[in-house]
């Protein structure tokens, strides 16, 4: 007689299921007794009484499940334990046992069990997050710190420790990363490739990675560094560390830096470091000065799309000197200082026709763009593009809301998950007679709503009907940030929006450009706000002032 046992850490199963498994393995050849119990101290006595106490059970804790068998021979015992493991893991087709996944109570347990973990994801409340991150770093493990409310002093300490140990501390409040093809937090299913992304901007990273995927290239690593990394107090510590890491990575041939505007002093340090690397670096500091980036020998890109296109071209081996080269309106060098970009390709045929149709149907007095965004960085990019295309003063008369901001999400889910808040805003916008365009982002991927487009459509229809009753038309412009490999499916989501009459753009920047073009065209009808100061930068052709966003394949 031999007794064998196996421990399943933190396994929680319905008692009926455990009994069924015990009965099944007890019926196997050569098995005389089987028991599945939680490994409490008291249950060791039970196992002892039953003649089933094996050494493995002694090291287990009260939240661990121990499976013990008494058998005629070692081989029979191991077969029985394997069967139990199959049943518990849900890999056996005959069960629905997918609830149990091995997880561990401490980082130490996880490392011991996995025998080679190199990333810990910390998502405890902020109060405890620093301690957990410290434990991981001290064990030589990189940290993805999803937790928010981590004091900046702790962030500095953690990042300094990470750098000293040649590790990454991604975060805090880090929403997105893709490491060796594994998505962490909110991320999209993008193909693997040789472009490394480093971002202090969650949806910015998502947008760039999706557009790279769409352009046929892929991502080696996407490293989130946390929104405060380029704050003067933190000093870009982790962006610098990630740069070094990707420069040394043989799988990365191009690097893209993405951030909201950093502190000037930090920007210079980061740009200097990037400029000293052998790997080409594309820099997208939203609203930053391309000339500064160029001065360090780097490639400036003023939109997420331009950054993705530049990186994709570099990945293909094409030479790219400047991702703002396609600007035809003077860009940052324009006389009034307003940064402008061009939508050189403009919307594709169907969208272009839809835009023209929308402009024709808008009534006098309809001029305002209402941007209702789920992604903070995407709303920031839209604001910039309105400024570039319409002029800063005119842009301020439009409304671009980041509905994922704390101001809107206190007490309710993020709009990437729950569409209701945004739907309320869409309907309310329709009641304002000045609304001409509703501008939306639709973010797909891990963690996002299962059908974000489908969830928006009823509100869009409702808004259109309300406007129609008042004799008005409403243009709705959107872009979908995602890929066809995302579980929501980009093409499927776009088809749902197109069927609802939404004007689709392949990127957030192009969507903002289309909205700006429509708004600019309405001014010709005298519908603009008093003193709105329409920009002349967008030009006008055939009634559509098409400002500009470089599309895939279009000149950078």
């Amino acid at each position, binding site marked *: 007689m031999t007794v064998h046992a196996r421990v399943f850490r933190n396994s929680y199963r*319905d008692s009926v299921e455990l009994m069924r498994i015990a009965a099944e393995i007890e019926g196997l050849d050569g098995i005389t007794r089987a028991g599945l119990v939680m490994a409490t101290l008291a249950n060791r006595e039970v196992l002892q009484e039953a003649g089933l106490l094996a050494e493995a059970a002694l090291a287990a804790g009260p939240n661990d499940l121990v499976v013990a068998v008494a058998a005629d021979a070692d081989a029979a015992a191991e077969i029985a334990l394997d069967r139990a493991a199959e049943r518990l893991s849900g890999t056996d087709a005959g069960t629905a046992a997918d609830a149990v*996944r091995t997880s561990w109570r401490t980082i130490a347990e996880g490392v011991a069990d996995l025998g080679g973990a190199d990333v810990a994801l910390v998502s405890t409340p902020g109060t405890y997050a620093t301690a957990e991150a410290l434990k991981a770093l001290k064990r030589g493990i990189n940290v993805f710190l999803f937790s928010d409310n981590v004091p900046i002093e702790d962030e500095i300490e953690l990042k300094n420790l990470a750098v000293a140990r040649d590790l990454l501390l991604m975060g805090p409040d880090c929403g997105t990363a893709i490491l060796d093809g594994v998505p962490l937090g909110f991320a999209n299913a993008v193909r693997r490739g040789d472009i490394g992304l480093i971002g202090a901007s969650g949806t910015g990273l998502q947008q760039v990675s999706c557009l790279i995927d769409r352009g046929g290239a892929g991502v080696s690593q996407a490293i989130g560094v946390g929104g405060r990394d380029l704050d003067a107090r933190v000093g870009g510590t982790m962006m610098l560390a990630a740069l070094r890491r990707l420069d040394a990575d043989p799988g990365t041939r191009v690097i893209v830096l993405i951030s909201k505007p950093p502190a000037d002093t930090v920007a210079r340090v980061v740009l200097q470091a990037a400029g000293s690397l052998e790997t080409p670096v594309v820099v997208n500091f939203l609203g930053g000065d391309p000339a500064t980036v160029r001065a360090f020998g780097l490639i400036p890109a003023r939109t997420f799309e331009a950054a993705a296109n530049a990186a994709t071209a570099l990945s293909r081996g094409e030479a790219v000197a400047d991702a703002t080269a396609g600007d035809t309106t003077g860009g940052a060098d324009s006389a009034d200082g307003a940064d402008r970009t061009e939508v050189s390709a403009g919307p594709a045929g169907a969208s272009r026709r839809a835009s023209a149709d929308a402009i024709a149907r808008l009534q006098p007095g309809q001029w305002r763009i209402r941007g209702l965004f789920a992604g903070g960085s995407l709303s920031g990019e839209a604001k910039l593009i309105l400024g570039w295309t319409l002029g800063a003063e005119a842009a301020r008369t439009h409304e671009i809301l980041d509905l994922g901001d704390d101001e809107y999400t206190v007490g309710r889910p993020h709009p990437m998950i729950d569409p209701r808040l945004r739907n309320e805003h869409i309907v309310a916008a329709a009641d304002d007679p000045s609304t001409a365009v509703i501008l939306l982002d639709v973010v797909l991927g891990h963690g996002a709503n*299962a059908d974000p487009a489908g969830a928006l459509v009823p509100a869009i229809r409702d808004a259109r009907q309300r406007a129609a009753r008042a004799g008005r038309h409403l243009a709705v412009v959107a872009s979908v940030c995602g890929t066809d490999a995302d579980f929501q499916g980009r093409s499927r989501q776009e088809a749902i929006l197109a069927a609802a009459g939404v004007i689709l753009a392949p990127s957030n920047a192009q969507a903002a450009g289309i909205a700006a073009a429509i708004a600019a065209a309405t001014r010709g009808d005298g519908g603009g706000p008093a003193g709105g100061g329409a920009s002349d930068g967008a030009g006008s052709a055939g009634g559509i002032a098409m400002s500009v966003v470089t599309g895939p394949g279009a000149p950078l």
Partner: protein
Amino acid sequence: MHPTSTRPDALDATLVSDAIRAHLARGGRCVVHSVFRSVVNLETPGGLITIGGSSVEPLPHGLRMRGDIDFRAAGLRIGHQVLLDERWIRIPAGAIAIDLSHAAGWSPRLPSTDFALARTRWRVRASDVRGLVAAAVRARSGSGDGLGDLVHHDGHTSLQSVARLAAPRLQRLAAALRDADPSAAGMAAESLVGLGPGLTPSGDDALVGMAAAVTAMPPPGTLDATYLRRVVDTAPARTTAVSTAFLRHAADGEFAAGLHELMAALIGPDPTGLASTIERSVAFGATSGTDTLVGVLMGLDALAGTVVDTPAVPLPETVRAAA
């Protein structure tokens, strides 16, 4: 990792235990502790919170939703991030958002009955109850190595391991309750923690049952379920997290709705439906329902002063001697 079936964008909670309202209002982040088909447990700094569908009974640490959602199919996994606040529970990885704003409150506090009145009712009903419990347990015989053996055991054959280990400890606890000795009750209770099969081991279920008896039929003096607090302090190291949650609330006189119903049938004014209530109790889980019922019966016997002479659970002679 993601659900393929369409489901509502936000789910409505219909019932929230008063015992966790304040905890939710504090907000913050926590993680998924365990996932079952119709139940998901959240591990929060303030203890476990259980979310269940409409078929799940109200729990002292739980909230109930309209309809049912298959949490496994929704892709929820242990360790997933959960965001809590006064109005919402959000689990981004499963694209789940539960709206608490329309949920009714439910008090898990078990009401007490005047001791003399309850004791009289119990003495009148105890014999019938024993018969009903024995019949219901026998009908489910072979359904697990819990304490059920104590209820329908013939006194001659050997007891299953768990029952044999638990019996003398239960007797010690019953004696402590009879003597209204919280200190002895606490010590006896400790010896039962974590004993037996299941997510809520049999010994823990019996402790919850006994605490329900004490809460519903509080004897004159100072004895109440707080003797369990001694157990709760050390429970995290001695039993499962799920069980710890039940014990913690039991120590505060808070119990699942099924126990409210059972106690009302046993010592309330109207015993109508006693048989069906007992059958439902026994049918709960693999052994948990029966194990809890054993605790309730032993507790009522102890408090009514019949623990030695006419125990509801007819222990075998060997066990009586050991006790």
